């Protein structure tokens, strides 16, 4: 199947928002999505973007059942390893179910890698849910390794009230 991989633009935010919700549903967490199309426009396409996007698009005659031509995306941003320097973090990678198995996911990830390498990054990091076996297999096939398993690193989060209290110095 024919498809193109390109940088996301402001006009893509509507479809990105749609697909973010689809991905959240797949991860059984759609009630946790608070970000709107407008937030994405502001946060990703202003002078200092907090993220960058890549879109996978198919030609008109291959549109999805509901009529969508934008069928996959990846959201990424640059981070920093105090050990190795510049790194790229792939926050989201998603392809609509009816377009899977055609190399689109691999192509999106390849694009993020290219951009990362061009920016001087030496690693690509991302997280996967431990029950997501098909994704885990896909990533392991690309040559990545599980930092949590191998080095025992756990992702921690401080948010909401806890973050506010921490800011005020309460203990």
């Amino acid at each position: 199947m024919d498809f193109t991989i390109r940088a996301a633009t402001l006009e893509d935010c509507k479809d990105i928002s749609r697909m973010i919700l689809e991905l959240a549903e797949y991860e059984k967490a759609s009630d946790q999505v608070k970000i709107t199309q407008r937030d994405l426009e502001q946060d990703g396409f202003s002078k200092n973007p907090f993220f960058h996007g890549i879109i996978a698009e198919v030609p008109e005659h291959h549109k999805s059942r509901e009529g969508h031509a934008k069928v996959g995306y990846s959201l990424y941003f640059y981070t920093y390893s105090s050990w190795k320097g510049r790194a790229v973090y792939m926050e989201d990678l998603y392809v609509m179910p009816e377009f899977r198995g055609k190399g689109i996911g691999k192509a999106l990830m390849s694009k993020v890698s290219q951009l990362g390498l061009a920016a001087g990054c030496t690693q690509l990091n991302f997280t996967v849910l431990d029950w997501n076996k098909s994704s885990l297999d896909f990533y392991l096939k690309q040559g990545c390794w599980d930092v949590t398993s191998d080095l025992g690193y756990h992702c921690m989060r401080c948010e909401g009230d806890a973050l506010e209290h921490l800011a005020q110095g309460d203990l």
Partner: protein
Amino acid sequence: MANFILRKAEPKDVSDILRLIKELAKFEEMEEQVVLTEKELLEDGFGDHPFYHCVVAEVPKDKQSIEGYTVVGFAMYYFTYDPWTGKLLYLEDFYVMKEFRGYGIGSEILKMLSETAVKARCSGMHFIVAEWNTSSIEFYKRRGASDLSHEEGWRLYEIDKRNLLKMTSK
């Protein structure tokens, strides 16, 4: 000794920052993994588009460390994005030299970072901790941190440069 200041790191601090990065890596038994140089820290942190931000803790000259250092702690962070909740502050490194612990320096650094996060309208602060590092885990849990790997099953993955290159050529 409770005399210390916290300030934004400046280009002149890169040598101390690298020293402290290596000390923390040594504590994590990963010292040989640090390949970052002072030159890269300078370029990446103090150019037009910094890849990271840094705060340092400094003591007066008369309170310097045994080897004569006055920069005794640091935190390295940057902003990331969660497509569900928005901006986040990611804490990459956070360390206070052993001889300066127990004086509230770590707490003050964390407080400053949280203020930065709240001011920048971040929905949270993320970081990783090694599961064997129980004293740090306790420090963070006391401040309301939750373990996402444990509670939600998130696992951190990495693809190194060699495999990145392989992917781009496929």
